[in-house]
């Protein structure tokens, strides 16, 4: 009887202590997600009365070339971003994990981009890429390639790639930091053994470093791929999704639909699509890469 009462009071305490976190999260994350689903079935400009629209927004989604383009761009950004960032951050992380003194001096500077907000980075790069006073074009003109100088963000064929490169520039230090932490955990004995076998640096990299970093590669790639669904700030600051639709990825399309075109219902449809994509992507990635292994790595935190 006493044990039973103790158990009940423990359960009560557990409820009491987890309730504040649950309430915050419930009201400002879960309930909004549910409201988004609801709003995806209404027609509303945010001011007048809202109307039930049934599946109209969803039907519109499948016939909307802008949304289709936004989805393609989002996945393009995801893949291109991964391809650009992964080799650089892996090499950089291994480089920084080395014991040489000069490498830790370099590392000090490598991390500084992480200290700035996305807005700050977007504005700095916009100014550097300016066709009149930007340092990139001034350099191209100085080294005798004036024909390459141009408004990088104003060219619809280039803007997407430029934005992807700036995003990569911003996130490489973060992923390099992950790889540095991973590389530092590789037991040195592995290298000593291969040194005796006469393996050179490149062999060692492919035979020891890379396989040993496999969980870090999984973690970093998962964060990169799911993270690319959330790139909003930088693109908003640099191009606002333009020129035309050249850089209008899904989160931007959602924002523009809801807050600039006052189509709250249709914007919510895009938001739900974004959330579903995020959840599906996480599930697929975690299943295919072995979540248990990753979580067991998290355990030791």
């Amino acid at each position, binding site marked *: 009887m006493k044990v039973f009462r103790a158990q009940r009071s*423990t*359960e009560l*305490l557990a409820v009491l*202590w*987890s309730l*504040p*976190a*649950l309430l*915050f*999260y419930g*009201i*400002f*994350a*879960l309930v*909004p997600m549910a409201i*988004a689903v609801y*709003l995806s079935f209404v027609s509303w400009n945010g001011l007048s009365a809202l109307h039930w629209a049934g599946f109209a927004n969803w039907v519109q989604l499948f016939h909307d070339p802008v949304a289709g383009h936004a989805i393609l761009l989002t996945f393009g950004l995801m893949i291109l971003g991964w391809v650009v960032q992964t080799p650089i951050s892996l090499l950089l992380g291994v*480089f920084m994990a080395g014991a040489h003194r*000069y490498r830790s001096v*370099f590392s*000090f*500077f490598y991390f*500084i*981009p*992480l*200290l*700035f*907000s*996305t*807005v*700050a980075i977007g504005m*700095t790069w916009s*100014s550097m890429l300016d066709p009149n006073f930007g340092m990139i074009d*001034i350099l191209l003109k100085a080294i005798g390639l004036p024909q390459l100088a141009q408004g990088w963000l104003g060219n619809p064929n280039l803007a997407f790639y430029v934005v992807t490169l700036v995003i990569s*520039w911003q996130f490489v230090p*973060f992923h390099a930091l992950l790889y540095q932490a991973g590389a530092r955990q590789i037991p040195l004995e592995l290298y000593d053994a291969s040194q005796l076998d006469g393996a050179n640096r490149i062999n060692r990299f492919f035979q020891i470093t890379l396989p040993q970093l496999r969980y870090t590669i999984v*973690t*970093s790639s998962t*964060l990169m791929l*799911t993270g690319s*669904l959330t790139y*909003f*700030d930088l693109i*908003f*600051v640099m191009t606002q999704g333009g020129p035309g639709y050249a850089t209008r990825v899904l*989160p931007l399309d*959602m924002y523009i639909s809801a*807050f600039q075109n006052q189509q*709250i219902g249709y914007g*919510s449809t895009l*938001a739900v699509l*974004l*959330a579903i994509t*995020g*959840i599906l*992507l996480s*599930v697929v990635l975690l299943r295919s890469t072995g979540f248990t292994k990753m979580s067991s790595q*998290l*355990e030791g*935190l």
Partner: protein
Amino acid sequence: MSISTQSERTEQQTMHNMSQKRQNRSLSEFFPVFFGLLWLVIAFYPLLYMFMTSLRSQAGFYDENPWLPPLHATLENYLAVWQAGFSTYLINSLIITIVSVALIVCVSLFAAYAIARLKSRFAQFVFNLFLVGLAIPLQATIIPIFVLISEMGLYDTLLALILPSVAFGIPMTVLILVTYIRDIPKELYESMQIDGATHVGILRRLVLPLSRPALITVIIYQSIGVWNGFLFPLVLTQSPNMRVLPLALWSFQGEYGANIPAIMAAVFLSAVPIILLYLFGRRYLLSGMIAGFSK
């Protein structure tokens, strides 16, 4: 790196081997040094550009080479930015960051203790909910959050920024703290329980001191997230006196237009608190940034 000297080798051979090995080493270090320097330029020059430009006069910006330091460095841009209400934005950013992070850590610590230590089905359910929540992109909820905040009459207040920031900071914080609290040896809990300590006592005298590294980590991780957040302020606030720094930078761009040196001064100023944190607590800051993603 030790060089084995085998007895059968002559002294001369060993010397020869050593110098060759050294040469190989400096040669093989060539590629890493080159790579390292290349990335140094790519990673750091944009920031150098930002800083150098912030010290130029408007005329200097048009005339001088942007790759080189300013000829006549001036602080006039910093003065102009400060006089344009920068202190208001700074204070707003400080308020939302401090209040949000304090709330996140406080509610998450209690929840994490309940999840990790109290065998409760409810707490376990909450934990699973948070784990699923990690997969939902914050951007996907911005429209309903806007509607909700407006309905609550909180639009264009600092509280409008704090509440959702807290909500989205909780899952990650709970995850990190739960992992950490679980790792505290069982015997420590048991010995305190035998001494008759309550859960509040255990939390205060055992968990709180022992999980200090994890707390510092989450505080830094969440502070940077809130400090640099842009979407919530963009959608949930409007008036200049509710502006936080990232949004202020964005509106500076509209107001100052072509005055790039002033904009760069604002950009640099907005990061000063985090730069200071980096200079004085680099280790904490960096481990805080990859909170939960690596051992």
